[in-house]
């Protein structure tokens, strides 16, 4: 029965005669579109049978999943030197019982995709032409040296990723901050985690959560906000929902504009219009104090009330006065969340006994993201929900190594290893002397620049060609990320990336590679190995499973070659090493030495230990015999209490809980205003609020997951979810093509009519690479004033119908041929 339309016409003639229909047939001769799908099919069937249970492997190599921030521990199945399967690690502490999701189970397949880049490419006359490694690296060396001389050391930038291994990020950080004396290096965690970092630093004085995933199974109430955990962290979500099923008395509160799958397990769903949820948090605090549910003892011992601008201390009474404005009725008016829900949530939050908050990009990617983070911490402080099992203020990370690789190694424009700001002089001096910057730096200042560099959005606004005098950054080295698709308001940044001298390190052709001057083919994670650190401070070693695809090189090797050519051969001691595994080990040892005397210490997590461990190690871990830390800030659990002097802290001997990140050991409770002043507002012309997010089958810009047949088929294109009432008003039905337009750019997307979002709120997944479906053309590039993180979650748009339904499930990916053209088709 499956016949092409061309054949169909022939059979139709026979059919009509036979069936004596007596009507003429109006078939026009057209190309046979049905064969398109069958052309994609063979790939799916050839790889299909490779489920772990059916595949014979020579050996299983330990590793960690390449996708989200959960940090699932896996084994890579290798047969005849090739990856053939992935299975979960049943001993794992993160993905208990070895559970994985559909992405992780299939990720190995991308390593053998025909689109893999295998040779360096240099752009000549607009075309990316194959070159040798030596040619490409020589060009990079010449350009970098030229720009250093002509425009200063800050004219050459690095833009890294939460998917680089810790060793890679650390090496690039060391090269840039110490070797070049330039803080002009940032990473894509700026687009996802920066607000959480600033939130923890301002409230606790030390980055990253106090607790761990273990708290899920100890919590009595779980407050999930700004996170569609079911799609973005499926394995963690499953941990939560199976815990909830076994313990129905545990309360789950979900606060989100969309009634996602996450809210299906919730006892209470608190809707909030995008951008307004800070009022809910302040409203909950007011209810808690008004009803005398707050923990007075905890507040007296561990809270320091602080003015909203952070300038000076305040009193508890001032705080009460400040939040008095946020009555449940006021909150309802501002956010759309029923007043009764605010009261109920406040009661459960305060009285459960152990409340765990989980949040992700819904709070971080906001114009007031840091303040949103602070307000969650506030709730935990006033209710005393920190430092006991099941109680924590826990930020979920989006990327597998954003915590370990970028936050802890300080690979952002304002940080140094140990996640300490570059502005702190004693720490800067320590890093300078540990790295021997004075001896090795090629910068005449022979020191680390005390001034932070530009955060991502500012970095890319300042990036430009040599003829652009107002753009001080002339070159950028981009590793393992795709800013030409991930930055907000792309129309503004794409020309900058194109005009500058852009070097891209990636495994596949991407939108960024389309704009690049040089493209370097990278090895895949399991072809090189390295350490990843997940959301719960756990570092886990991925061992090299197979030899790299011919022609590709590990990012670490590339970093070392650049270091050598720039005259930093002795500075990066591992740059002369041949074996990539040894290279990584040396980089790791250098790193754990550098941060050994900080609370982020992984001194006990030697390579040997990481190789043997099936569970990874949670910092602080000061020595090899230390088991790793489940709870920070608590005496008896946190090793910092054993010898605070070593880490530069003063902890009173009688303190059983002490927040040593701040000098007085107390957590800041900020009087932060809830008004999203900088966020985009709806107007008559742009009446809808658009928010963006992930789906379970895809990851980031889809460069990998759109190339896995199973996941690409499951989510082949972006769409816009519109509330059924809005659709009625606009005269839209399922599948209609609409133009979604903001003041910055537009997309053409198919409509999905849903009833699970708030009216006036629409949602677009962020993974599609097709030019007119890349949602970041629409997104607002307003950034949080403190963290520099853009506001992807709130954009005002208008929606107009362009046509009826069209077939757009093309699983579009950028091909090698497209690399020659800078237009995004």
């Amino acid at each position: 029965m499956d016949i092409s339309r061309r054949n169909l016409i022939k059979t139709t003639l026979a059919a009509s005669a036979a069936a004596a229909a007596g009507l003429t047939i109006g078939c026009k001769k057209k190309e046979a579109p049905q064969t398109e799908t069958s052309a994609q099919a063979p790939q799916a069937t050839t790889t299909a049978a490779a489920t772990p249970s059916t595949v014979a492997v020579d050996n299983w190599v330990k590793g960690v999943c390449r996708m989200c921030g959960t940090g699932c521990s896996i084994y890579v199945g290798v047969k005849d030197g090739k990856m053939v399967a992935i299975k979960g690690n049943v001993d794992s502490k993160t993905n208990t019982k070895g559970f994985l999701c559909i992405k992780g189970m299939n990720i190995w397949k991308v390593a053998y995709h025909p689109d893999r880049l295998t040779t360096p490419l240099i752009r000549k006359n607009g075309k990316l032409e194959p070159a040798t490694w030596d040619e490409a690296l020589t060009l990079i060396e010449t350009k970098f040296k030229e720009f250093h001389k002509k425009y200063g050391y800050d004219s050459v930038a690095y833009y890294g990723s939460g998917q680089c291994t810790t060793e890679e990020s650390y090496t690039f950080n060391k090269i840039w901050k110490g070797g070049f004396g330039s803080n002009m290096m940032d990473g894509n965690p700026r687009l996802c985690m920066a607000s959480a970092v600033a939130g923890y630093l301002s409230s606790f004085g030390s980055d990253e959560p106090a607790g761990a995933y273990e708290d899920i199974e100890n919590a009595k109430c779980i407050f999930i906000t700004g996170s569609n955990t079911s799609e973005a962290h499926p394995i963690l979500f499953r941990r939560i929902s199976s815990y909830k099923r076994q313990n129905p008395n545990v309360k789950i509160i979900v606060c989100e504009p969309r009634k996602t799958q996450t809210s299906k397990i919730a006892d209470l769903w608190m809707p909030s219009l995008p951008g307004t949820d800070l009022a809910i948090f302040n409203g909950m605090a007011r209810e808690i104090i008004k009803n005398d549910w707050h923990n007075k003892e905890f507040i007296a011992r561990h809270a320091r009330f602080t003015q909203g601008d952070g300038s000076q201390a305040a009193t508890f009474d001032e705080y009460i006065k400040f939040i008095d404005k946020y009555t449940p009725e006021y909150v309802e008016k501002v956010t759309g969340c029923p007043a009764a829900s605010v009261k109920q949530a406040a009661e459960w939050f305060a009285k459960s006994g152990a409340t765990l908050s989980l949040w992700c990009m819904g709070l971080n990617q906001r114009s007031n993201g840091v303040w949103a983070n602070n307000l969650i911490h506030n709730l935990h402080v006033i209710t005393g929900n920190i430092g006991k099992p099941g109680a924590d203020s826990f930020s979920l990370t989006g990327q597998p190594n954003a915590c370990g690789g970028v936050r802890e190694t300080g690979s952002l424009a304002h940080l140094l290893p140990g996640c300490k700001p570059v502005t702190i002089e004693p720490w800067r001096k320590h890093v300078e002397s540990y790295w021997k910057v004075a001896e090795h730096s090629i910068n005449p200042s022979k020191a680390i620049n005390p001034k932070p560099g530009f955060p991502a959005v500012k970095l890319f606004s300042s990036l430009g060609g040599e003829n652009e005098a107002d753009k001080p950054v002339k070159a950028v080295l981009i590793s393992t990320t795709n800013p030409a698709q991930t930055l907000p308001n792309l129309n503004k940044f794409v020309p900058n990336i194109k005009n500058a001298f852009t070097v891209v390190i990636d495994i596949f052709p991407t939108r960024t590679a389309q704009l690049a001057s040089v493209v370097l083919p990278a090895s895949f994670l399991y072809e090189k190995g390295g350490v990843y650190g997940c959301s719960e401070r756990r570092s886990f070693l991925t061992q090299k499973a197979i030899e790299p695809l011919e022609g590709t090189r590990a990012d670490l090797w590339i970093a070392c070659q650049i270091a050598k050519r720039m005259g930093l051969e002795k500075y990066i001691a591992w740059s002369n090493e041949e074996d990539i595994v040894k290279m990584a080990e040396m980089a790791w040892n250098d790193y754990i030495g550098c941060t050994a005397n900080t609370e982020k210490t992984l001194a006990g997590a030697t390579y040997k230990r990481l190789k043997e461990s099936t569970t990874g190690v949670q910092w602080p871990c000061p020595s090899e015999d230390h088991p790793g830390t489940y709870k920070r800030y608590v005496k008896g659990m946190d090793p910092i209490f054993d010898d605070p002097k070593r880490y530069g802290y003063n902890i009173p001997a009688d303190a059983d809980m002490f927040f040593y990140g701040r000098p007085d050991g107390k957590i800041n409770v900020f009087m932060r205003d809830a008004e999203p002043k900088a966020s985009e507002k709806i107007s008559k012309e742009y009446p809808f609020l658009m928010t963006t997010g992930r789906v379970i089958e895809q990851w980031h810009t889809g460069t990998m997951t759109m190339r896995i047949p199973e996941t690409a088929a499951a989510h082949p294109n972006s769409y816009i979810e519109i509330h059924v009432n809005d659709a009625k008003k606009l005269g839209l039905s399922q599948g209609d093509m609409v133009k979604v337009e903001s003041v910055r750019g537009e997309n053409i997307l198919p409509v999905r009519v849903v009833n699970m979002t708030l009216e006036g709120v629409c949602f677009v997944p962020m993974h599609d690479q097709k030019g007119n479906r890349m949602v970041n053309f629409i997104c607002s590039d307003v950034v949080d004033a403190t963290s520099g993180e853009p506001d992807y979650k709130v954009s005002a748009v208008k929606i107009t119908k362009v046509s009826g339904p069209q077939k757009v499930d093309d699983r579009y990916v950028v091909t090698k041929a497209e690399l020659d053209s800078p237009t995004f088709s």
Partner: protein
Amino acid sequence: MSIFDNIKNALNSFPVKSTYKINRMRPPGSVDDDLFMKLCIRCARCVEACPYRVLRRSSATKNAEIGTPYIYAEVAGCQLCMKCTSVCPTGAIDSSTVEMHQVAIGVARINEDTCMNHLYAKVESGELEPTGNMALCNSCLNTCPLKDEAIYLKDGIIPTITDKCTGCGLCVERCPITPIKAIYVVPKNMPDEETAGYYNYLKRIGKK
């Protein structure tokens, strides 16, 4: 009665004409198959009208069904846009079908032995030993045009199909289990797996 009518009636009364098959559905709004076979004049207007190119036509090997429209769910499910219902000149596809809720061209069922979420839940409950082969996926749920109405996750994990299922087959298209999908649609009028004759699904996967 003309000779053409005679041929038509003879063909339509042919005893083996209706070869129901798993994952092969008539267009949305189609009338009962007996009537459909009598009414359908194989004009292909519905096939032409389908903006997603989902509708196909039966080939000559399918006895009297030759030329009639089908959805072949493994390749592409129906997006329920209802563009085909209004073009049918004979009423084989009921033109009063304009809402996706009205559609009932089949019912999806899940193969509990291959669906990853089912296996996952079994490991979680201790029914199966953990082997590391369990992967979570919500593709059938996420792709369903009547998400949470026609399909929901029982206990937050087990995809469960309700009687609201339209039988559009999108879940079959998007199911990541290959080559034999873990979800399938039994078309309307096909009695059930047991009596589905030659095309019995269980036979196809070697269970019987």
